[in-house]
């Protein structure tokens, strides 16, 4: 039953953007009827077929860890949240298309998750400034999802979509824009479903197929060892 391998994907974003709705949609294929505040972390599981349709098809469990809260929380809450950021294999960043601040806060969210080991008290070493080099160096796959697409009037859609394209480019990630209350956006065969599938495949690949039995050092380990001990990361 639980004999399949698993990967851990973190779902981050501001309060109220629709993380719980999206996770419910991805895992239960149903729209969440009564969304309420997430306290702490809520986890759900999706079964994914890696390399579907090919002879190397294999099934994996994808654990989606939906961490609640806001970037401006007290540092005690941040230290508590940091316990969920252990050994993550992928991050989904969610922002609200109708709220620009939630998109800007994604930088702070990703830094919080990726810098987890930088200081034991959870205080960010880089004081929240965005540093493109850190993201270029990053080995953990990211996916940017914009929600509440239906609430954007047609006239403003282009402007909003251009802005989010820049955002996704900054993170070196794919982007999906949808409405969590409408399962049509993730229907099988649509371009969004393909992007999602590709993202999960990438996460599984990085976790299981990119090393010769050694653990991939996390983002912070690389800072500690300075990249000298990573000879085993190359393809054969």
């Amino acid at each position, binding site marked *: 039953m639980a004999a399949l391998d698993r990967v851990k994907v973190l779902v981050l974003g501001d309060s109220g953007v629709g993380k719980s709705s999206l996770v419910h949609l991805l895992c239960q294929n149903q729209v969440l009827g009564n969304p309420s505040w997430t306290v702490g972390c809520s986890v759900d599981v999706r079964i994914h077929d890696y390399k579907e349709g090919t002879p190397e098809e294999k099934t994996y*469990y994808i654990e989606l860890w939906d961490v609640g809260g806001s970037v401006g929380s007290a540092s005690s809450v941040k230290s*508590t949240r940091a316990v969920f950021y252990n050994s993550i294999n992928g991050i989904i960043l969610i922002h609200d298309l109708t709220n620009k601040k939630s998109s800007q806060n994604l930088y702070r969210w990703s830094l919080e998750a990726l810098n987890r080991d930088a200081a034991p008290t959870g205080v960010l070493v880089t004081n929240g400034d965005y540093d493109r080099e850190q993201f270029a160096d990053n080995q953990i796959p990211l996916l940017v999802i914009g929600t509440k697409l239906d609430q954007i009037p047609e006239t403003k859609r282009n402007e909003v979509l251009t802005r989010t394209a820049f955002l996704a480019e900054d993170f070196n990630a794919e982007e999906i824009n949808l409405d969590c209350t409408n399962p049509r956006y993730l229907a099988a065969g649509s371009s969004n479903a393909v992007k999602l599938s590709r993202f999960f495949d990438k996460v599984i690949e990085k976790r299981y197929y990119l090393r010769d039995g050694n653990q991939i050092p996390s983002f912070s380990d690389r800072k500690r060892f300075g990249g000298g001990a990573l000879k085993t990361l190359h393809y054969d």
Partner: protein
Amino acid sequence: MSFLIDSGIMVTSQVLFFGFGWLFFMRQLFKDYEVRQYVVQVVFSVTFAFSCTMFELIIFEILGVLNSSSRYFHWKLNLCVILLVLVFMVPFYIGYFVVSNIRLLHRQRLLFACVVWLTFMYFFWKLGDPFPILSPKHGILSIEQLISRVGVIGVTLMALLSGFGAVNCPYTYMSYFLRNVTDADILALERRLLQTIDMIISKKKRMAMAHRTMFQKGEVHNKPTGFWGMIKSVTTSAPGSENLSLIQQEVDALEELSRQLFLETADLHATKERIEYSKTFKGKYFNFLGYFFSIYCVWKIFMATINIVFDRVGKTDPVTRGIEITVNYLGIQFDVKFWSQHISFILVGIIIVTSIRGLLITLTKFFYAISSSKSSNVIVLLLAQIMGMYFVSSVLLIRMSMPLEYRTIITEVLGELQFNFYHRWFDVIFLVSALSSILFLYLAHKQAPEKHMAL
């Protein structure tokens, strides 16, 4: 001519206060949200500006700045505007935003907002009946009617906040009350949290796998319905299928547990940070202050009890009393008139500044704690309402701290309110609030170490 200059000064200061309120709103309150309805920001800043102007007029009264008749005029004007805002504008907008959040009523927003406002007015009016706040000479639509009711609500709020603050302040400052938290405690709790989440994950994996096999086999997902259905399912359940609803219940219970553990862990982290803070210089300073504040708090509770028991209302204000004592008992002679003006200015100034600052900080904390992106507009407007009522009743109560010659303007403008009633009401609510806060904090403090013993 001087009236024009005075009005010019007043208008400039009002614009300044408006700007400050605007900035406070943007930088502090709505830091993490996007302002989509500028109406909210304008209403908040207007309430703030007119409240601050009232305090400014009190200070001008003491210092003797500006012409006396123009002061009186501005008092009346200011009071009318702020009552208009507090009783008409803000409640209407609160109703409007609450109604627009509900999807069903979205079409007829304006209509339902008016209905909500009328209900509010009805209860607001009824509020005045049980209290002996007015002499029956006044008509229905006079300022005194409105202000008396606003005053009652505001004084209740002030007393509640003040009672809670007086007890909470020494509790948070003094390190005597800090529980001892070690790193091992935190690690143990975190481990429990992660274990619980792992259990949730494994159960969810079973459910997901069961759903998938059922979906692949093309089985219809038939839940046992009714009494006979349940009996049937006991005997005829297929060996491969799991009792999914049972697992779902277990998952729900585990999720509740994980939430509790998360909150406890956050609590422990916060306590650990406070312990570290108390070892710094600032922490020691606050600890020291805490002892003073606890004495002050005990004294205030004592005075409130005495006031109620002996039905005593102070006739003279602290400034005149202090001067009397120094002149009569200590025999120090000085120019009473000159000093009384300056001392009352300083005293009243300190009271005003600390109450404004305290209220803004409390409002900000409250806002961060309970707002979300949907309700932020409504909550900010509620806070603006509370702020306005708080400031209006501060003016009522501050009359007590001023010498007789400066009280006249407040008495003139506000008419014949029974000021003594407000002071008595404040004492009663303060006492109730302080005693219940002590009880509440005692219970919370007692309960916490027992939870950790059970680990």
